[in-house]
């Protein structure tokens, strides 16, 4: 009975720690956000600046929010695997198993057996991207609508892609640019950098466009409301009635659906690109050759 109580206390602690970062984000938002005057579309607000070489490091909303999202996901993981047991004792375990098995299946399908170690990476990427995008639902600045955040992830993916292309040696990597013919080398070189740029711009653009469209619709509906229902007496005429409910419906698409879809697309592209960059056949051949060399010497 005593262990049960402590178990429950830990559960409550995890849940609180899941909610607290989001609450902190909201409080910060309320405390620091100036009242909007008309239509303003700006990037993340800068909290403070850390001087760094090359470029100052601005600690903005997107940095703070992505940190908060990370903490939330971390405690969500702890909550999910708390009390995990062979014989299922808690319902949440089914969900944890579902996540792991689905992502495992996805990775196995898209990347193959060799890349099974990427499962937790894909889970982390999906979770971070989706929760970041969905954080706009509670009024936070979604970190994914900042090009720097998504760009950082895309750079990581680019590093991974290049790492796998380099696995067969730098010479083989350089040679791969001249395929199918040497004339295409510049285009191949460009397309190498196009991958992370297109990935980051796709994701960031979708989330930002959602925010932009939501803002535009809210402002437009407000104007329309004044125009159509402005004749109502007193303060009733000043309330923009059309802004009640309609933006929420649209936000289901622009925030929820688009956010989840972009997270999925980003993860899929990561899997495709990383797995596609690895010349498996060539790698196996080299490995065999090396082994033969080793045996002869």
């Amino acid at each position, binding site marked *: 009975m005593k262990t049960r109580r402590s178990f429950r206390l830990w559960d409550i602690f995890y849940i609180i720690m899941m909610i607290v970062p989001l609450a902190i984000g909201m409080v910060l938002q309320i405390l620091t956000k100036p009242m909007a005057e008309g239509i303003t579309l700006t990037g993340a607000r800068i909290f403070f600046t850390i001087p760094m070489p090359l470029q100052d490091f601005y600690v903005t909303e997107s940095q703070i929010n992505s940190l908060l999202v990370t903490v939330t996901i971390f405690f969500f*993981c702890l909550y999910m695997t708390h009390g*995990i047991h062979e014989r299922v004792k808690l319902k949440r375990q089914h969900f944890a198993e579902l996540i792991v098995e689905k992502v495992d299946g996805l990775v196995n399908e898209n990347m193959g057996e060799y890349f099974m170690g990427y499962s*937790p990476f894909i889970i982390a*990427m999906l979770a*971070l991207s989706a929760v970041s995008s969905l954080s706009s639902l509670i009024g936070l600045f979604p970190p994914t609508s900042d090009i*720097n*955040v998504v760009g950082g992830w895309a750079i990581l993916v680019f590093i991974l892609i290049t790492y796998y292309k380099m696995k067969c040696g730098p010479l083989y990597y350089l040679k791969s640019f001249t395929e199918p013919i040497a004339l295409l080398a510049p285009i191949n070189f460009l397309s190498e950098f196009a991958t992370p740029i297109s990935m980051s711009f796709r994701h960031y653009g979708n989330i930002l466009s959602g925010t932009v469209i939501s803002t535009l619709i809210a402002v437009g509906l407000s104007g329309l409301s004044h125009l159509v229902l402005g004749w109502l007496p007193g303060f009733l005429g000043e309330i923009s009635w059309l802004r009640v409910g309609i933006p929420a419906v649209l936000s289901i698409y622009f925030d929820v659906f688009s956010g989840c879809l972009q997270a999925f697309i980003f993860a899929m592209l990561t899997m495709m690109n990383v797995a596609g960059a690895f010349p498996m056949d060539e790698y196996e051949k080299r490995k065999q050759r090396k082994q033969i060399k080793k045996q002869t010497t």
Partner: protein
Amino acid sequence: MQTLPIISINIWEMLYALLNLLILYLLVKKFLYQPVKKMLASRQATIDNDYKQAEDAKEKAFSDQKLYEEKLSHAEEEADSLLQSAVLSAQRRESEILADAKEKADGILRQAEANAELELKKAEETIREEIISVGTVMAEKLLKREVSAQDHKDMIDTFLDNIGE
């Protein structure tokens, strides 16, 4: 409060996001992926073990059944042979007893016959003695003459032997 322009490139922010993703990857791996995988593996092991045990138990049950069936059929055979041997010994005993009884009866019969013969001989002897003495007296009276007893005996013996033939 200052804001960033809506599109701005900042390498440190990119680095921050990159590290953020990497750290979250490590956290997810350590606290979600590995525990679940470990649990799944141990569950698989348990299930495999259970299946193996069940299989073993089944096999053992089958072999036991075979053994018992064999034993049972053996037992029937044994019982048959036991019964047969019992019947055989009983028959033997019966015939022994019968033979014994017959022997005894024969012995008794022979004894009786012998006895009867002896009695007969004795009776014959007595009768002969009587007849001899009666004959002697009658012959004395008839012939009124002295005949030696030996002569008489011889005469009557021959006479009786002739009759007895």
